[in-house]
């Protein structure tokens, strides 16, 4: 019984942690301009997290 409560509390903590570390905190962002033949064509405001979106997708797949 006591152990069960401990597990549930841990679960609540984990949900709180995941929400924070996946959606809050400092995010690195940057801007990029895509040019073709030296002509600026597309301006992109992007997150320079190399893996952020990818890891998020994978996280979602896990749960």
């Amino acid at each position: 019984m006591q152990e069960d409560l401990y597990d549930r509390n841990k679960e609540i903590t984990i949900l709180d942690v995941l929400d924070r570390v996946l959606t809050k905190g400092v995010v690195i962002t940057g801007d990029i301009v895509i040019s073709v033949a030296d002509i600026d064509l597309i301006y992109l405001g992007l997150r320079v997290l190399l893996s952020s979106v990818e890891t998020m997708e994978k996280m979602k797949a896990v749960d």
Partner: protein
Amino acid sequence: MEEDKILFYAGSANEIVEELEKLKPGTQGRINATPENVESGLAKLVLTLIELIRKLIEKQAMRRIDGDSLTDEQIENLGETLMKLENKMDELKKIFNFTDKDLNLNLGPLGDLL
């Protein structure tokens, strides 16, 4: 994380786990058009906007009723129209296989649209 971080709580842990799950960032909200699903992606966008407008209309209608300035005939018409609108919307959702949850957009820091 080794310990739990609950400093104070008097309620049931099971209930709150369920509720926290609901608050988790949604997996919907992205409209990703590919040749295979472009129809459904666009339908989702369009239906989301229609649903937004429908809910706005509904809200405004309630405010008019609150104001108590409508005639009996107007009330009847309003009821009939809103009902038909909602039924039509349900039909469309069924055709494209959308749930209410699907018809929402994540507006980033602004939260969800609906």
